[in-house]
């Protein structure tokens, strides 16, 4: 395996992503939906409909319920009930850290984006190899590059593109907050914003790897889109609804980083580092599994 060939495949794949319909959709969805979901938070503050303290107290409950839910601490209805009564101690402390020790609106944006970005990746990174498999374009490269190099090259190209895209979105939000809202110091905003951008980059990588795995083994781009979207959105939905029937079924959430990715923003640095390690470990698993399947399949 030659790193030079992997680098070349990834370098040449980036302009192709941009010229590709799915790449343009990826940019469009990430920016339009990414900005749209942050807008209500900013509108609440800018319009002054509700005082900021009231907004924060409602956000604190919502975020603590959400964090407790993805930590599999109970079923969603029970957690809503407990959250309303202020009985979610662990998750509430976590929410307090995000909303009171860090720029609150930016933390809220991070929590929302954390729920959406895996879905953006599913709709943007599904066509790394499946289109080339369908139309045979891959056959021109296969006698000049090994399957493993091709697989990894496409992954690195899409990962770089995704990181750039997501970072640009978050940077735009940070700059908007700094320029338009007179709420936080530039220093704390940039510090928290930079950390968030870095952690989102880490969080997106396993999802890109999952898309590479699916895309390399499904010959139709449409089939790949359906499968990546169904897996990435289906796992949390199935997990959270299945645990209402039997709590251990909630562990399905750990098939994807959904089960631990929120810990990237944990107040305890050790927990955050474990989540980073988890993201890399999942990336490695998806890549190894995907590559093994890709090397054996007919092309």
């Amino acid at each position, binding site marked *: *395996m030659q790193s030079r*060939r992997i680098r*070349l*495949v990834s370098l*040449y794949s980036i*302009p*192709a*992503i941009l*010229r*590709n319909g799915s*790449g343009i959709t990826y940019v469009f969805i990430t920016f339009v939906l990414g900005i749209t979901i942050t807008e209500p938070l900013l509108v609440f503050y800018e319009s002054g409909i509700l005082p900021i303290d009231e907004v924060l107290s409602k956000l604190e409950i919502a975020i603590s319920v959400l964090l407790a839910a993805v930590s599999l601490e109970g079923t969603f209805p029970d957690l809503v009930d407990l959250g309303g009564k202020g009985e979610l101690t662990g998750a509430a402390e976590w929410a307090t850290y995000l909303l009171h020790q860090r720029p609150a609106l930016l933390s809220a944006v991070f929590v929302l984006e954390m729920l959406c970005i895996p879905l953006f990746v599913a709709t943007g990174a599904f066509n790394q190899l499946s289109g*080339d498999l369908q*139309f*045979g*374009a*891959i*056959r*021109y*490269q*296969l*006698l*000049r*590059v*090994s*399957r493993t190099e091709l697989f990894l090259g496409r992954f690195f190209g899409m990962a770089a593109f995704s990181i750039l895209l997501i970072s640009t979105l978050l940077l735009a939000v940070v700059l908007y907050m700094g320029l338009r809202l007179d709420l936080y110091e530039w220093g704390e905003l940039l510090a928290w914003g930079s950390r968030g951008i870095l952690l989102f980059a880490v969080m997106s990588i396993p999802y890109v790897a999952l898309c590479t795995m699916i895309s390399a083994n499904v010959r139709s781009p449409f089939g790949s889109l359906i499968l990546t979207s169904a897996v990435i959105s289906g796992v949390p939905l199935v997990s959270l609804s299945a645990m209402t029937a039997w709590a251990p079924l909630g562990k399905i959430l750990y098939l994807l980083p959904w089960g631990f990715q929120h810990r990237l923003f944990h107040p305890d640095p050790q927990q955050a580092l474990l989540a980073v390690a988890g993201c890399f470990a999942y990336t490695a698993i998806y890549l190894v599994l995907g590559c093994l399947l890709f090397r*054996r399949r*007919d*092309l």
Partner: protein
Amino acid sequence: MSTSPAVPPSSALDLEGVTRTFGKLRALDGTTLSIPKRSIFGLVGPNGAGKTTLFSVIAGFLQPDAGRIEILDGLAPGDSRLLGRMSILPQDALFDRNMTIVDQLMLLRRLEGASRRNARLEVAEALTRVGLGDYLERGVSVLSHGMSKRLGIVQAFLGDPELIFLDEPTSGLDPRNAKRVREVIRELSVHATVVVSSHNLFELQDLCDHVAILDRGVVKAQGSMSEITRGARRLEIELERTLVGEERAAIEALAGVRVAEDLGGGRYIFPLEAIENEQGNRTVRAILGELLRREITPRSFREGSSLEEIFLQLTDDTSE
């Protein structure tokens, strides 16, 4: 599939008992084939004979179910040591519509180790050679079928491959470009082994020095073109005029000549009884001598069958 180092140095490719099935369909059924180095090797067969499957298995796109494949000094398909030494023009593959032509070809050359500058120069030169020099910075969507085919041929010839597979390289090309492609193949065969599959048997007979006939995944015949086409000994001759009864009878009365077949327009086929080479040569000389003695001028003559006739004899007419 196994690999052993015992490849004769004269062979660019050896296949033994290669089998590949798709469900119940046996596309390759114990295919055994040997392709000499530096040859232009024709692979012919009816539709569905397994030619494209065979190319795909050799290139490593498809995994064989059984059999042994040894490429360029005993390497198995997919071996990283083959990267850049082998190239293919696949039959139905499309180029990436999201990259410019120059980027696609430059990537292929750079993967083989060329610098960015050299890759660009080589690509520009190769595209100009097949009349696509003006399309360097364009996408493939602007190319016609024939132009896409020429682009496919360019990528197969890029670099310095030792073994080149061309799956129907001239289909869809106009006569001028088909001729140009044949010339390029001839030039390349000085340095490389070229394996060509085509339904144009006259083209292959003219172009190739070796040939194999594949039918339902089984190699029915293989060898040098002259061995294959001379298998059934006969003389096909075109005369300045039709033979009258007495003239024809005189030729048929020669030793080693059977009853002639009149193809019309002064064209005749004389089946030869001779099995031995020298005996056959004597008969051919006798026929020509008899014609000249009677002042009948032969316009053209060819000993042996055409590849097409051999093909029709050997392949099953129920193939699809």
